């Protein structure tokens, strides 16, 4: 009180004489103060806290947290005065530079108390209309008779430039084949193309045939789906710290591949990804939940943490929809109105309301066969478990001299000659780390019954137990339930013992134990142990220990394959039959299981959505209805609109031909896919912060054609890949280079480095080892499919590992160890366009990795089998396969010396690394 009083007194004293009596004039007295002290943060350039003091309407609207900041006639209540006065310790204005003088504060105070008169028409700045932006306007009508080349040539002519001559047809063939399918043309395809050209002199027919062949190839969708998956940041793990597998995400990846292959009309592609559950395209809504997400266990137990996590989840859906379909950075409006674009915070939360009933998670794939599949899987699982028990009878006896499988975390069998036992003791002497943990200790009698179960009357005791909340209790050792949450843990690091007392002396012949039979955890595994039994008489006798097991390999994550070593022929025969049946059952169960769940969002009754002050879930304001960005449309749904109707309505609004953004954004992505950069280079941002199109007329012409063709991506790609612009040479003309180094005007074809996937796939194609199997769960790039403890890479690939890279199990944030360094997206944030870095790590990976050396060997073998032992012939074949051309004499001689000295694989290794191979010509 005293302080306020003193200040007020000081003010009165300091007030200039002219003001004590007269009127404050805004332009003469007030505006100069704003200009000097406030505009640097609250003016045209910056609007900190959303406050702008150089425009009347904005100034009276006020900032985000304290609006209005100016309350006419009430200086005492006006935040502006409080802040400049320094009354509010957290908001002293200006915060960094020199404070306002007493007289200046007095002027502002007087101005407000006199009614804060701010005459109209005196502002020096003008509030720009954020809606006034090229991409928000309807497509400009273009002459439909024009071609892509006409538009390109016009711009080139303006700069005195011209298109380059056509590329060699075989260069074009290599270009278009890599571009459309992500694989190089085969020498046979090249030869056929050459023959067709000589048969059809002067016509485009051979070129047309090639494009049709490539667009019809299943390889096409595998290539073009990757561009889309980059944008939506697709991965097969959940991301964030635990990064656990998302095992049912892949149906969405397969959906996208199929959509490209089928040339699904793009407007339909949009509808399916937002509401495919209503259109018999269940997997398509994987789009909604492609982002990283915190799992329940990673979210704080307090309510505020839960609310924040939910907002983060919903935010990712809004961001994905905005960026992928509309090319708008809507996410910016979560905490404040968008700085550049006409997107308010209210728009953000209204859009979020379309997704108010969507949650992250698996759902049963709804299809006619799914329920039958579930039943079938259940039946097969029962049979598989039965076989597992039978197979255990054929595990080599402990101590028999036959080398037994190494210890593994999932399950270990100890078989021994039948022995009478009352007590069974498992003593641990060493672990791979920490306190030992066992999820179940099973003891089988001669008829295959587990007699150690508590339900059978068996009693456990232990050296000590380290119990945490709800887990690791002693009773979990024989409760018949598997997994970490139902496991016992010793209270000593690296050691401990557990004993089961059977209700009566029983003849037993097998013990099965594991750390985590669900296969999730690999730590706390007993490595050294001894299993003993005692009869009623009490004498302990050793049954098994790991001295006859193969050594434990921490890198080996899966249990060793069942071995037939040491079995007599009859047993071996029986066991191998069982094994085969089990293997086939497992494959069928996997296939059925995968078909029945999909990570494509779960739907529930929508929760109410509120505008959040500064994006803070703890500061909810008014409830909002589902509505599109107000500046772009007027679609609004009632607050109680049902869940699926919301998504469908949004999809229909986005997919309208009248939407000025939708077609433009997609045709630009397609163009970018072919030329490496879009006409708009910020392909995820068509707003004010994005770039203007280099060829606006061409962009709108293509968008119009795209819609007219029924939103056919393939039709657009025919136009592009057969255009003279696309078919021109990539050679550099120094004069043109000086004028347009970025080649944005396309005076030549802009050659670029191949993407990570294309390099890997091409190497496999050349070595002849590429496996073209399509669809289904991804193959492993790492020895772990998710989790905390790191991702040791698979180094030598075989089987499914030789499939195209789009079919890899994509671990979020973890780049593949050889090709990831080639700017492979990490699926953290949307990648609208891949960078093209050149790094020494890329060089090391491509030159030294096991993958390169393995494929060099295989490539060499293939060449030998196709070209025989003649070295020049081998070199010729190698060049045709790798570079789609023959070597010239200098190249051939050079290579011949290396091949005769160091062998063919050395040439192959150099070819895999050379610039000509890794560049799209």
């Amino acid at each position, binding site marked *: 009180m005293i302080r306020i009083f003193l200040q007020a007194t000081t003010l009165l004293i300091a007030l200039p004489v002219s003001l004590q009596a007269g009127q404050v004039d805004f332009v003469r007295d007030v505006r100069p103060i704003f200009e000097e002290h406030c505009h640097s943060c609250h003016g045209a350039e910056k609007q900190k806290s959303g406050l702008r003091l150089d425009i009347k309407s904005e100034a009276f609207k006020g900032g985000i947290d304290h609006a209005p900041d100016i309350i006419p006639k009430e200086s005492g209540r006006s935040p502006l005065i409080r802040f400049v006065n320094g009354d509010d310790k957290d908001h002293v204005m200006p915060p960094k530079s020199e404070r306002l003088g007493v007289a200046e504060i007095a002027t502002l105070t007087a101005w407000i108390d006199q009614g804060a008169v701010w005459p109209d028409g005196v502002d020096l700045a003008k509030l720009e209309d954020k809606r006034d932006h090229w991409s928000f306007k309807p497509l400009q009508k273009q002459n439909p008779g024009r071609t892509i080349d006409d538009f390109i040539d016009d711009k080139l002519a303006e700069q005195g430039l011209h298109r380059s001559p056509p590329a060699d047809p075989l260069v074009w063939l290599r270009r278009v084949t890599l571009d459309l399918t992500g694989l190089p043309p085969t020498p046979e395809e090249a030869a056929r193309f050459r023959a067709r050209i000589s048969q059809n002199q002067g016509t485009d027919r051979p070129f047309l045939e090639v494009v049709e062949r490539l667009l019809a190839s299943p390889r096409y969708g595998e290539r073009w789906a990757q561009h889309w998956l980059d944008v939506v940041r697709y991965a097969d793990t959940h991301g964030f*710290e635990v990064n656990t597998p998302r095992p049912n995400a892949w149906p969405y990846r397969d959906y996208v591949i199929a959509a490209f292959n089928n040339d699904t009309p793009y407007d339909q592609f949009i509808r399916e990804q937002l509401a495919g559950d209503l259109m018999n395209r269940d997997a398509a809504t994987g789009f909604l939940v492609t982002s990283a997400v915190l799992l329940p266990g990673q979210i*704080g137990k307090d309510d505020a943490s839960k609310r924040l996590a939910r907002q983060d989840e919903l935010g990712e859906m809004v961001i994905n929809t905005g960026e992928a379909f509309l090319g708008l950075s809507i996410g910016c409006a979560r905490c404040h109105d968008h700085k550049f674009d006409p997107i308010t915070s209210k728009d953000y939360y209204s859009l979020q309301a379309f997704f108010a009933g969507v949650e992250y998670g698996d759902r049963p794939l709804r299809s006619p066969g799914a329920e039958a599949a579930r039943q079938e899987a259940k039946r097969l699982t029962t049979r598989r478990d039965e076989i597992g028990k039978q197979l255990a009878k054929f595990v080599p006896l402990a101590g028999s001299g036959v080398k037994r499988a190494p210890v593994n975390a999932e399950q270990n069998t100890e078989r021994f000659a039948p022995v009478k036992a009352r007590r069974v003791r498992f003593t641990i002497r060493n672990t791979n780390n*920490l306190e030992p943990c066992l999820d179940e200790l099973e003891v089988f009698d001669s008829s295959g019954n587990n007699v150690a179960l508590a339900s059978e009357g068996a009693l456990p005791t232990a050296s000590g137990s380290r119990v945490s*909340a709800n887990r690791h209790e002693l009773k979990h050792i024989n409760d018949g339930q598997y997994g970490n949450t139902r496991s016992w843990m010793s209270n000593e690091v690296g050691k401990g013992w557990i004993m089961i007392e059977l209700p009566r002396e029983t003849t037993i012949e097998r013990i099965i134990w594991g750390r985590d039979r669900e296969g999730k955890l690999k730590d706390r595994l007993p490595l050294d142990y001894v299993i003993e039994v005692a009869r009623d008489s009490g004498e302990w006798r050793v049954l098994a220990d790991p001295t006859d097991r193969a050594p434990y390999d921490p890198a080996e994550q899966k249990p060793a394959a069942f071995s037939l070593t040491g079995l007599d022929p009859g047993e071996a025969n029986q066991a191998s039959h069982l094994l085969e049946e089990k293997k086939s059952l497992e494959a069928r169960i996997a296939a059925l299981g995968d078909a029945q769940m999909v990570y494509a969002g779960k739907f529930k009754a929508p929760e109410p959505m509120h505008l959040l002050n500064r994006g803070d879930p703890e500061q909810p304001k008014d409830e909002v209805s589902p509505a599109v960005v107000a500046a772009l449309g007027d679609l609004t749904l009632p607050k109680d609109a049902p869940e699926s109707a919301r998504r469908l309505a949004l999809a229909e609004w986005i997919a309208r031909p009248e939407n000025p953004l939708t077609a433009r954004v997609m045709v630009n992505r397609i163009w970018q896919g072919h030329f490496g950069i879009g006409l708009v280079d910020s392909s995820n941002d068509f707003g004010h912060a994005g770039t203007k199109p280099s060829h606006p007329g061409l962009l709108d012409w293509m968008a119009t054609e795209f819609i007219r063709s029924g939103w056919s991506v393939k039709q657009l790609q025919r136009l592009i890949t057969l255009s003279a612009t696309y078919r021109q040479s990539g050679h550099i003309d120094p004069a043109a280079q000086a004028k347009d180094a970025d080649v944005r005007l396309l005076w030549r074809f802009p050659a670029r480095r191949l993407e990570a996937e294309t390099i890997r796939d091409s190497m496999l194609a050349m070595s002849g080892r590429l496996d073209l199997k399509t669809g289904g769960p991804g193959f492993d790039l790492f020895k772990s499919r998710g989790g905390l403890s790191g991702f040791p890479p698979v180094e030598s690939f075989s089987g499914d590992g030789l499939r195209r890279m789009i079919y890899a199990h994509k671990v979020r944030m973890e780049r593949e160890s050889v090709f990831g360094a080639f700017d492979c997206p990490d*699926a953290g944030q949307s990648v609208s366009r891949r960078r093209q870095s050149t790094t020494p790590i890329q060089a090391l990976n491509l030159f030294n990795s096991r993958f390169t050396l393995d494929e060099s060997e295989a490539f060499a073998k293939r060449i030998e089998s196709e070209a025989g032992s003649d070295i020049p012939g081998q070199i010729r074949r190698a060049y045709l396969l790798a570079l789609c051309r023959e070597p010239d004499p*200098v190249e051939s001689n050079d290579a011949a010396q290396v091949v005769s000295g160091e062998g063919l694989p050395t040439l192959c290794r150099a070819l895999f690394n050379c610039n000509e191979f890794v560049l799209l010509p």
Partner: protein
Amino acid sequence: MTDPAEHLTPNGRHLLDRRHFLGKSATALGSIALTQLLGAEGLLAAERPLIDPARPYAPRLPHHPAKAMNVLVVFCAGAVSQLETWDYKPELIKQDGKPLVGGPAVTFQGPAGNLARPQYTFRQRGQTGKWVSDMIPHLAELTDEIAFIHSLTSKSNTHGPAENVLSTGFVQDGFPSMGGWVTYALGSENRDLPAFVSIPDPRGVPQASVNNWGPGFLPAEFQGTPFSASEPIRHLTPPPTITGSRDQAARSLLQRMNARHLEKNPGDGKLAARIASYELAARMQLSVPEIGDLSTEPAHLLKRYGADDPSNPTKAAYARNCILARRLIERGVRFVQLFNGAYASAGKLNWDGHSALKEQYDVHAGILDQPTAALIRDMRERGLLENTLVVWCTEFGRMPMFQKGAKGRDHNPDGFTCWLTGAGVKPGVSHGVTDELGRRAVQDIHPLYDFNATILHLLGIDHERLTFFHNGIERRLTNVEGNVIQEVLA
């Protein structure tokens, strides 16, 4: 061509684009002195770094004169308790065992228990008389040189996202790491080593793993290269089945192939850049094994770091990583990130002391303390701290209460301690205050943005001007926040 600005944001984001660069440097790639080029364009205080594609790690000029040339970050994963280390709370000793009045009933992991006294004895150290605990006796001796910031806050109370915040400024996955930003801005003084090296803890990777050293959406040149004294760079050399002569034959054949190809495609900078990248890779093949070879370090030095301690292999391995860190800094590697602590493991492998804090911290401190202190002293004695900023950090702090039914503390992002020492840092400062129980920051509160802005500032970088355009936004390490903490600057 037309006015280039037509296609650019007002800030000219294309400075990073290699083709644009090549346009400026014509065909004489690498032959033009970079500074000359920068000077010619009037870009000595560039808003955004200009990257020479053939020499992406070439040194670049900062925005303002730098106090520090290099950074060493000691990153303690798992959230070190401020209450057991640097933030002395005598009131907490008094209130041991009492409930926290008005405190939360439920914290991150579940129900909260009662207040618990610091688990170690505190005593005053050095000239400043700063109270530091006995948990870290060696580091405690350095307090006169350190600037503590006791009032940091984080946006997340979950390890992975919070490590993201500390290293990238964002909760989400996928943003560039600080080391990435710094090497993007400044390049490196060393021609034969990566500009940014991450040294993982011998016990495993930190919770947010590669996010801590990833490039996010920056070009891949600027990602950290992970290796340690025990784990070499992957693919540094071919498998031993490839003989030296065979390797050399492949390498020189490749060189000739690329040279012929370049001759046929003159003026293409991409090709020259790839050739240069193979040359740098070849130099790394020589320089990296050399730098990782600690056999030239004298015995007394190994002893001083604890690298010869046979009783504690983890400590010895971490100590060898500390020596590696010093050797990297000595050779001008711009950004070295040294991890202490691995992933979530109920506090066994990192600082996440939920249930048995004292027991586990005894182990972790034994690994951290002596080697880290030896590293800082060694660097000081060699004069390296004249140019090197040392950062000690952790993703958040811990609660003054124990968790219900446990002897450990839950996550607390509302007030925790990190510190700086070395080049440009005011020694012997304690800035910012938490409340008398250490529950939350109450004075000079600094979100981690401020901490990161301060680190960039010491390197001569204005955190508001170091940007990269991605998906419609000029992204920064500090998002739209950040104020340099002036009080810790020398």
